[in-house]
């Protein structure tokens, strides 16, 4: 009874999150990050021997490198505060999670501090990313076997 009452009071008192505003902000920030990524991909396609398919790897690496620099200089958290999910969902958010965790635990030493805590936040991304990729590949393999779609 007490718990329900608390939940009700908490619901009444806490301010309503501005969902629409947050969604628009996330759209703008996430879209801008992806636009920058698209420009980097075009740069690799135009000036190096990468095709649209192969350009994605160096593009991802470059985006993570930029996010790493921004995290180190303390600028990425400002972007993330404004953009919310728009800054967390692209690959730059993953880079930010890895780098900020390793900066935080640097004082505990390089092996047990940085090495042990680097994937504290990003570990779940890797785990569920690999798992969902496995599930999707399994479904696609089955569909290809039955001739519903082709590779």
């Amino acid at each position, binding site marked *: 009874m007490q718990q329900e009452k608390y939940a009700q009071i908490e619901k009444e008192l806490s301010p309503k999150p501005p969902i629409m505003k947050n969604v628009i902000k996330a759209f703008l920030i996430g879209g801008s990050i992806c636009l920058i990524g698209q420009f980097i991909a075009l740069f690799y*396609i135009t000036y190096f021997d990468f*095709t*649209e*398919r*192969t350009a994605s790897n160096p593009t991802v690496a470059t985006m993570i490198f930029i996010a790493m620099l921004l995290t180190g200089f303390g600028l990425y958290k400002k972007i993330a505060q404004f953009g919310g999910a728009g800054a967390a969902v692209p690959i730059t958010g993953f880079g930010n999670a890895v780098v900020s965790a390793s900066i935080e635990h640097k004082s505990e030493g390089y092996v047990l501090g940085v090495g042990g805590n680097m994937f504290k936040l990003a570990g779940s991304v890797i785990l569920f990313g690999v798992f969902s990729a496995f599930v999707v590949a399994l479904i696609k393999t089955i569909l290809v076997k039955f001739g519903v779609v082709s590779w």
Partner: protein
Amino acid sequence: MKKLSIILLILGLLTGCSEKGTYIKNTTPYDEHSVENVLMSNEHVKLAKVLLYEDELLAGIRVNTFSRFKKKAIANKIQKKLEREYPDLKVTVSADSKILLETEKLINKKSEKNYRKKIDKIKSIEKEQT
């Protein structure tokens, strides 16, 4: 100044995508009209640059924006059609913008000196998977 730069940016972005049609450079005795027919008969193709050189037929195509999801299938279909039309030529068709870009560079080149080398290079990067 700021307004002007925004207007210029928008104009640049809009005009960047307006190139259309089929451009063919033929250095062989083969007839290139059926290439044009095959490419123009496909409603998904927006822009195509084709180069015929010795025993090679290199075609870079750009598909309409919403057909991009199946651009590989479109390119394969066109490749099969062209292979039927030109059984003596080695046909390479790709919807990748890199192939389009490189084919365009080759077409605009004045001398045909390095064509063989460049075509082999384009074909090898087209095959790369990762």
